[in-house]
């Protein structure tokens, strides 16, 4: 089991640790609900050092990324970031990623922890013939996520750089609590916030300084309820090697006007399912529960849980193309009515 540079700090804070993608990470420090609401109302701080980071650089870096990713990396100016995906050869998704343009010919790709080895092997195989260097920096990168309405104000107290000039998806260098950091105005909660890329030896000092400044430490439990409420996909659930992203609410990521690896297979692959957001009248939907229409199973929940803001059970679910509501979710043998919801499930800025 691997530990992040903040492992000891988590234990001192009384975190309940769990195994996630081979890393020991905090599930919660106090309670998931409390941490969730801290992010929605003030500011929460997550250790997401398990995430993978690849550096991609060289004169063909852009050409390579245009080939390997589905979004248009050519739109990225230096200092900007975008959400993207790595398509596979059969119209599915190797991983969903975030791509940051650091310099003219240098990009940082953040990938899911469980996919680090798979993604890196995939990218290497695609890199043949491109003048590009791929480096896996996952082991030497700590990553914190400071999220919430008060994140910017709180972080501003620890850096001389004027954060008010920074927009969503900006990436830039700054000193935070006297330590060098790469900051990005990005996150996975639906709130404003920043992600901080740090050297492992600087991570604890910055983590503790942010807590001292008033951020609430938050674990993976709240990270999942926050992303679900925000209607974001989680790889392995809403997106997999077999999911055609064109058949999802995230089809906007795929830019058909450019060439990319696996494009023809993706375009040729018909959509047999579509993704819905569902809100239950009672009870809590969980992954794997069946979705019913007229008493007939027409789909399944891929992510389900409790929305602390709605105080109701919510789910992301795939149903057969053509299936029509009203829908229900089968909870322990009982068909519980489920209302369609737009994503995100809750109003977010």
């Amino acid at each position: 089991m691997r530990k992040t540079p903040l492992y000891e700090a988590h234990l001192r804070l009384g975190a309940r640790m769990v195994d996630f993608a081979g890393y020991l990470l905090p599930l919660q420090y106090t309670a998931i609900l409390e941490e969730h609401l801290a992010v929605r109302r003030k500011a929460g701080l997550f250790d997401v050092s398990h995430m993978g980071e690849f550096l991609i650089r060289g004169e063909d870096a852009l050409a390579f990324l245009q080939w390997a990713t589905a979004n248009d990396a050519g739109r990225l100016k230096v200092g900007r970031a975008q959400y993207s995906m790595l398509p596979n050869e059969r119209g599915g998704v190797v991983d969903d990623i975030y791509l940051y343009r650091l310099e003219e010919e240098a990009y940082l790709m953040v990938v899911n922890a469980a996919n680090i080895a798979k993604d890196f092997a995939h990218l290497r195989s695609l890199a043949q013939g491109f003048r590009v260097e791929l480096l896996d920096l996952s082991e030497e990168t700590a990553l914190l996520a400071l999220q919430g309405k008060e994140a910017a104000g709180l972080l501003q107290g620890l850096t001389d750089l004027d954060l008010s000039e920074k927009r969503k998806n900006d990436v830039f260098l700054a000193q935070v609590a006297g330590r060098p950091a790469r900051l990005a105005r990005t996150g996975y909660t639906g709130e404003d916030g920043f992600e901080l890329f740090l050297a492992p030896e600087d991570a604890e000092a910055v983590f503790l300084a942010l807590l001292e400044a008033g951020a609430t430490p938050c674990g993976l439990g709240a990270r999942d309820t926050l992303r679900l409420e925000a209607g974001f996909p989680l790889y392995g659930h809403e997106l997999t090697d077999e999911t055609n992203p064109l058949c999802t609410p995230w089809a906007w990521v795929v830019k058909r006007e450019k060439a990319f690896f696996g494009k023809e297979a993706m375009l040729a692959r018909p959509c047999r399912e579509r993704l819905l957001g569902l809100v239950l009248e009672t009870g809590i939907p969980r992954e794997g529960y069946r979705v019913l229409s007229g008493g007939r199973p027409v789909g399944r929940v891929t992510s389900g849980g409790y929305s602390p803001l709605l105080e109701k059970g919510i789910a992301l679910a795939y149903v057969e193309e053509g299936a029509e509501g009203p829908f229900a979710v089968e909870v322990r043998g009982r068909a519980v009515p489920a209302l369609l919801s737009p994503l995100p499930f809750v109003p977010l800025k």
Partner: protein
Amino acid sequence: MDIPKDRFYTKTHEWALPEGDTVLVGITDYAQDALGDVVYVELPEVGRKVEKGEALAVVESVKTASDIYAPVAGEVVEVNLALEKTPELINQDPYGEGWIFRLRPRDMAHLDELLDAQGYQAVLEGEV
């Protein structure tokens, strides 16, 4: 973990408190702590007859759903309706306000088959 000595326990982390010819049933402090924030409780119907070990209620936390089993055979005579509006009572007061249902055991003597506080403590030590 708090384990009151006035009641019986199961290996599946229910407690059973005898009151006259009935028993009050809930989940232990250990169980509520392991579940985390309880956000929904599915209560059994009053009048339902259950066998020992039968699942008859469900406690859902943010993280997971957990079945609650009948500690002894009997009939459900009352349920804690307060949990419909305030399921967090299970976290706040697992041995008191957070009780889940009341059973009338087929035979009160069946309670003797359950663990006492010391026996439950030993179960927890085995789990840790």
